[in-house]
């Protein structure tokens, strides 16, 4: 049983990398249920890598990944999906030549119960009406912001316990970016637990309950979203740049 003040997900001294070297050099991070936590940090700090070790796209070399009190680092990415950990990667992840509807159905790929799938689609459509309005459009024909909305809606198909959102606003025009952050606020109001990675630190922290700064493979600083926004060091390093 997970009590409300126990973290949903805990990273303990996680080390990981792609070849010989380590990208993550001992990451410690708690994600509390029902909260949005925003991970910020410079390019190449290892933010995406953190998400990959949680969803299982990348194995870890040391430390522990604990989800609902269980060590999950040996589970396959499909098994972790089954536990309700959904990863929306940094690159565009829709299937461009498939319709919006088919993309949404792919989000429910591991589900068998058609009635449940329909219910989930209805629920997701309440937050993201676009999945009904543009049902038959090819996903690749939507604008960047619309595509992100569909991606996020698709991630809801499994009623996930934890959503890993990797730079959802990257490469979007200001209008689409606004759309994406509105979507994240909506999810937050719906009580979802989200680990958000954002280059756009100001907007990211603003929609988050808590924030963490990743630097050179380690978590350098943790605080409330509002707290980090006011922190002079964070402000100088990350907020100045993003408001340019």
């Amino acid at each position, binding site marked *: 049983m997970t009590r409300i003040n126990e973290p949903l997900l805990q990273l303990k001294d996680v080390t990981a990398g792609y070849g010989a070297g380590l990208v993550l050099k001992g990451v410690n991070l708690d994600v509390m249920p029902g909260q949005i936590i925003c991970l910020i940090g410079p390019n190449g700090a290892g933010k995406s890598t953190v998400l990959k070790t949680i969803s299982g796209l990348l194995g870890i070399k040391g430390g522990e990944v604990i989800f609902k009190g269980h060590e999950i680092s040996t589970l396959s990415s499909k098994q972790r*999906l089954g536990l309700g950990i959904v990863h929306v990667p940094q690159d565009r992840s829709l299937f461009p030549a498939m319709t919006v509807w088919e993309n949404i159905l792919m989000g429910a790929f591991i589900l068998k119960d058609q009635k449940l799938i329909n219910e989930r689609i209805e629920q997701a459509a309440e937050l993201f009406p676009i999945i009904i309005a543009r049902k038959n459009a090819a996903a690749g024909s939507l604008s960047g912001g619309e595509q992100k909305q569909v991606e996020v809606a698709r991630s809801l198909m499994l009623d996930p316990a934890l959503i890993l959102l990797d730079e959802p606003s990257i490469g979007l025009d200001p209008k689409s970016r606004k759309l994406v952050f509105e979507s994240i606020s909506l999810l937050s109001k719906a009580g979802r637990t989200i680990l958000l990675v954002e280059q756009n630190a100001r907007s990211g922290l603003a929609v988050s309950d808590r924030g963490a700064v990743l630097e050179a493979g380690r978590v350098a600083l943790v605080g409330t979203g509002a707290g980090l926004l006011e922190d002079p060091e964070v402000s100088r390093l990350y907020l100045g740049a993003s408001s340019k």
Partner: protein
Amino acid sequence: MHLVIQALILGSLTGGVYALMASGQTLIFGIMKVINLAQGAFVIVASYLTFSLFQMTGLDPFLLIVITTPIMFILGVATQWFLLKPLRPDDAAELSLLVTFAVALGLEGALSLFYKTTLRSIMPGYENHSWTVWGYQVNEVRFYAFLLSIAMLGILYLLLQKTKFGRSVRATVQNPMSAQLLGVNSKAVSAFGFGLGVSTTAAAGAVFGLITPFNPGSHYDLISRLLTIVVLGGMGAIGGSVIAALMMGVGAALVSALASPIWSDFTFFIVLLLVLLIRPRGLFGAKVRGAL
């Protein structure tokens, strides 16, 4: 004019058969980015299988497809599982070219041992029948072959577009990492997709054996034509390869009728060169990644 229309008829009928072989090849390329150089050899294997089964049972070659299709499917899955899957992802693209070529040579060798190099034909007795429609000759076997190819393509289309398995195949073609993140087993999709692509050679092989005398070395001829069609159609686009196959079928028949049959083979090479030089993504090459 009569000659031209006659060539059009013959060309479309032949093109339909090539469309079937090429669609399997295109499917394989789309899913795995593997240029399957053994596709021609699989067609010849299927031709021999049909030939032998026909001799043993006397059943109609078109009926035998029900038996040969699952056999070719299994052969395809096995090839992928034991020979292609173990390749390291980093150099799989280049090595798979060599592996499939080795498979082609291996199959050719095995067939030569069993059947020698004598040219064979599948002769159910009606292979030379034709109808005369408004003065034009329509060869019966080629006509049935054409219908069969269309039907098989239809089944392939429905499988890919209307089933959950098909959806996972298309998803893997369009964005493999994303498909994996959603729980698609990409290894199973690759193996099944390869099997599916090879299984189209069952029908194609039966038909090929009916309309052309063949021996184990015939696959060289076939694969060069298939590559031309697949490249012309835009690698990975099944619809494109069907249209390209019809175009090449008609083109070759026209050249054969108007110039000489010797030049007809040559058209394929000229088209292949021209496409590669002028428009490498083919006529229908996808602007969006993965048009399947």
